[in-house]
């Protein structure tokens, strides 16, 4: 903790979230407190958010972009990017931030790309929304970025429709689209969970390199503990809308919170195959 505090005091952090709360209303009219009192800050680093399904990971990510349904209530002391409080922006101003300053990579490229638009146009659109630039120039820019995400045949992919791409290719396109305006902060919401392990590795490598080269901040959302530990710098562990623990990635195996420990113990491996897996005993106290 102390180390992180030091860092935040030294620089203005890239992103600062204080006391974020999000409430949804479900079909039966009950309210769901999806995110409770979440605070964290982020520099130019790879921050991981883990937790089981429904713990509020995605909601945190979307709240930063203000892309929560209007029916939901969002409250926070502050969501500041480079010192600008996003909560105070009008919708029009917020649009200048989306894509341009903050981007988000979605989980499933199959559904997250517009099926009837050419891939190249979709990427170019992301750029042209924020920059006045001619078609030809935009195209060149797109081809460049496609190259950056290691697509071997950018011309062909430029003309392709999303359904003509494999999952891995689709995810690269998604990344290209999100990176092309050159955002300061990239949120990746389970960008690889729909992909095979080997493809996953390649995609992560691309994101990794880009973050390093361009000096972006990255929020990486996933439920895969192993992956997090090996990929991120720092990890937030969420349970039922709260951050229950925060630690350096390398120190995950020494996590202290019983929930984190429980999750780690649940994982089947070839080594523990003669034993029964330990299961999670949820303690109501975790919700405090």
């Amino acid at each position: 903790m102390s180390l992180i505090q030091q860092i935040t005091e030294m620089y203005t952090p890239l992103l600062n979230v204080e006391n974020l709360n999000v409430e949804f209303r479900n079909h039966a009219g009950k309210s769901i407190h999806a995110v409770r009192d979440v605070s964290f800050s982020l520099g130019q680093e790879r921050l991981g958010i883990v937790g089981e399904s429904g713990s509020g990971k995605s909601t945190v990510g979307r709240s930063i972009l203000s892309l929560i349904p209007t029916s939901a209530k969002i409250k926070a002391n502050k969501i500041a990017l480079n010192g600008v409080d996003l909560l105070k922006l009008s919708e029009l101003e917020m649009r200048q931030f989306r894509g341009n300053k903050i981007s988000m990579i979605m989980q499933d490229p199959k559904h997250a790309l517009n099926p009837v638009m050419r891939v190249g146009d979709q990427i170019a659109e992301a750029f042209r929304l924020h920059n006045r630039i001619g078609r030809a120039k935009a195209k060149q820019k797109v081809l460049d970025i496609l190259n950056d995400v290691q697509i071997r045949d950018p011309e062909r992919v430029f003309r392709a429709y999303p359904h003509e791409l494999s999952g891995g290719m689709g995810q690269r396109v998604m990344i290209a689209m999100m990176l092309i305006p050159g955002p300061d902060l990239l949120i990746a919401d389970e960008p690889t969970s729909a992909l095979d392990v080997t493809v996953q590795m390649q995609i992560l490598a691309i994101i990794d390199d880009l973050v390093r080269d361009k000096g972006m901040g990255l929020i990486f959302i996933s439920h895969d503990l192993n992956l997090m530990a090996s990929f991120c710098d720092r990890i937030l562990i969420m349970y039922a809308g709260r951050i229950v623990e925060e630690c350096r990635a390398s120190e995950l195996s020494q996590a202290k919170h019983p929930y984190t420990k429980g999750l780690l113990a649940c994982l089947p491996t070839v080594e523990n195959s003669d034993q029964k897996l330990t299961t999670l005993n949820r303690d109501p106290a975790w919700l405090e």
Partner: protein
Amino acid sequence: MSFWNLKKKTLSSGTVVKNRLAVPLFLYQALQFISSILLTFLGLTAVTFFIGRVMPIDPVVAIVGDRASSVTYERVKLELGLDKPLYEQYWKFLTDILQGDLGISVTTSQPVLQDILRFFPATWELATIATIIGVAFGVPMGVIAATHQGRWPDHLIRFIGLIGYSIPIFWLGMVGLLIFYAKLDWVSGPGRVDFFYDGIVENRTGFILIDATLAREWEVLRNAFSHIILPASLLGYYSLAYIARMTRSFMLEQLSKEYIITARVKGMSERRVVWKHALGNTLIPLVTVIVLSYAYLLEGSVLTETIFAWPGIGLYITNSLFNADMNAVLGGTIVVGCVFVSFNLLSDLIYILVDPRARS
């Protein structure tokens, strides 16, 4: 919705086995189309023939009238070939039609083909304007309703649509005439064109609006337009109601998709998200809806045609049916049926054009 299910599942990976019969896809589709037309055609004519046989109207009486003596009766019966067994009559009909001969209508004393070439364009013209109205208003209304789901514009638009769904058209037609024609004098009355404009323009397409434009007879065009606008608006209102409702529900579906969020993440304005991305995808299923509702209008609406004294195909077929004029009924049915089938094909073709997924 599509007749030939051109939507094929796209495969993510796996090896594609070479198609042994390397028939080009379009040829395959053309064959499918032709066989489908043929089968539908056979089905239609067979059913119609059956109807002709069981109709409680004696076709001979329908021609010779109430007072004919039995001599006349028998002679006409013989002339019509009604003494022959039904399959023979059917066979003759089929062979005749293959030579382009639909026979003579006994109620108009004219070749059925010629009748249809006159009545069908009248209906077609009406249906086209109605569909244009339906699409021009229905689609935007549906989009607005969807983007304002649960709020007053949504309720208002749905209510307007529901009214369109719920009022008998003959009643609305009469009231429409009463108000817009008799009282307000905004439109011309029943009929396609005032008679003194009749015959001024050469009949090239059967569509008065087009013929008048081709002939640069603006007076005729204006007059024809003022005749068609009221019945077309009424029919258009009905298709508007349907199109708006379907647009709304397709839009709602699309708006809940993830690529919409992607578009927003890019920082796109809400208007662009809705009208470009969401509507672009909505158009795909919507095309089928629009084309189908257009096809239904092309059947002709007897009620509208009666009220507006519109010489359309619906009235023609109905009149012929009630006069047991089976040549005319068969001809009309075939035309309407084939148009229907072709329109379905058309909707599939458009589908392929607008949906890249259907193309590969």
